[in-house]
């Protein structure tokens, strides 16, 4: 409910554009470097825009990082499926079915979000060594999902608490049991919550570095974040290729921002703690 723009707000728009430009400068710079020729990378002063742009960085990405992108996609989607499968029914139980001990459970979920990922990574590493799950995509999906599950449950709970009780009672009167009510009434009504949770589960799994670098560092299938990191380590001269990979790795974020900005904002304000 912003105030009606007056006629004299032109300077504010100009100022806003300026602030946005300052804020997004690193993003521009990443893009700029990704198109810079290797011979120009050491230019002093650096070129402010990619004159004589080259696609050699992007060619390197396509040649070397496609499998990593595929792994990240797989991990992201797996994480979404696992998170929604766990969080949606739990949210229903807490919000509508008066789960005994739900206060304690909510508290535990809040606490779970405060645990540093380093600590989780060590615990997972210790378990995975024995179970033979190191360097597996499945193992990484499970570990990454721990970032999104507590958030997912809390968000589903908040959302499902808003579903009118009369609707659920009507389903009961029609003879639907709890499962049936959940599948045919609660889930369809919770579509926006599912979208928000899925979006964050995907984005967090896609962006994860800590779990990838500890649980999947020697695998045949490494995710793109680790791909970039290893790139930096092995290849400190080819910053155009590194930045090109970074640009490609940012595509999901850009797409989500454009397509689902509403849900992103809703998710952030729901108290998302980015991990």
């Amino acid at each position: 409910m912003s105030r009606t723009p007056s006629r004299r707000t032109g300077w504010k728009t100009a100022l806003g554009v300026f602030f946005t430009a300052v804020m997004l400068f690193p993003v521009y710079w990443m893009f700029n470097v990704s198109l810079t020729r290797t011979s120009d990378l050491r230019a002093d002063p650096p070129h402010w825009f990619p004159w004589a742009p080259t696609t050699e960085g992007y060619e390197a990405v396509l040649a070397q990082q496609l499998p990593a992108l595929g792994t990240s996609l797989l991990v992201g989607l797996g994480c979404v499926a696992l998170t929604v499968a766990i969080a949606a029914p739990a949210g229903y139980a807490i919000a509508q079915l008066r789960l005994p001990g739900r206060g304690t459970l909510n508290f535990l979920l809040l606490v779970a979000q405060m645990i540093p990922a380093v600590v989780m990574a060590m615990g997972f590493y210790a378990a995975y060594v024995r179970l033979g799950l190191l360097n597996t995509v499945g193992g990484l999906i499970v570990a990454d999902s721990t970032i999104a599950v507590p958030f997912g449950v809390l968000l589903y709970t908040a959302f499902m608490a808003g579903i009118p009780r009369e609707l659920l009672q009507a389903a009961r009167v029609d003879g639907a049991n709890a499962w049936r009510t959940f599948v045919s009434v609660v889930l369809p009504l919770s579509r926006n919550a599912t979208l928000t949770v899925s979006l964050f589960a995907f984005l967090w799994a896609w962006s994860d570095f800590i779990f990838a670098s500890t649980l999947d560092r020697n695998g045949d299938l490494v995710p793109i974040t680790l791909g970039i990191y290893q790139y930096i380590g092995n290849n400190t001269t080819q910053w155009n290729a590194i930045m090109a990979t970074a640009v490609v790795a940012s595509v999901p974020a850009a797409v989500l921002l454009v397509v689902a900005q509403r849900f992103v904002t809703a998710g952030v304000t729901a108290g998302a703690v980015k991990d």
Partner: protein
Amino acid sequence: MTTTEAPAAAGAPRVTGTAPRRPGRRGRPAASRWAAVGFAAPLLVYLTLFYAYPLLRNVDLSLHAYTIRAFVQGNAEFVGFDKYVEVFTSSTFPTALWNTAVFTVASIVFQYAIGLALAVFFRSGFRLSNLLRAMFLVPWLLPLIVSASTWAWMLSSENGIVNSVLGAFGVPQINWLTSPDTALLAVTVANVWLGVPFNLVILHSGLQSIPEDVYEAASLDGAGPWRQFWSVTFPLLRPVSAITLLLGLIYTLKVVDVIWVMTTGGPADASTTLAIWSYREAFGTGQPDFSPAAAVGNLLIVIALVFGFLHLRLQRRQEDS
């Protein structure tokens, strides 16, 4: 997703047997309670396996002297709190604690101040304000490794754009990431940049709930913009501010990716925080040393919990009022 005939699919109440399948009628709390447990069962199993177990394992790690071999064989010697003593008396400890404090406090203060200023600026609503505010989310959505490597390149000593711009003003070259004097500053700046969008969005949504007539009353009383901010906006925003700062604090305490990618905690521990220290001991060298790493990690959990309880108390007080 919406098959109606698959009660055995994910989330089906395995524990409760047939109870939830019976047609529920009004006034049957017992059945409904069993259904609730059934729906929550996957989460309870999940929390036990993937939170409780790793955390217990971590406590176990910190109380034993694990070597790599013992780690695989599982026969490490029990040493009680020796590893904690080792950590507290280590020369890295005061440095890491100080760096954590500086990094965290500086990060959240600047994130908050910049986020609030921008939130107030965007509140007035001008042409393109919604679009521009959405663009501000970009840094928050990017993978941290992407942002961190971009900052690393921007701050690099010889070819970095930052030194190039400063050079134009006659500032001599600064070795942002490789000098002990500036490494912590460099990673803090990057982290502030990462945190501004989150603060902006939360504080902006907090501003939306302040009614317009309060401002009208204030301006009738002759309060200028500056006075309005300090007498109306800031006090009314206090609950939202408290939550924002605490969330920022909890998040910043556990930051690893940004610092690790930019400096790996160096040079010579200059940007080593507790989280970085823990990560480096466990995974950052070729010689994993899990026991002290786990001890540092557990210390981090305790610190986060203290502030977490503060958060909960604040939230509860807010709900009461």
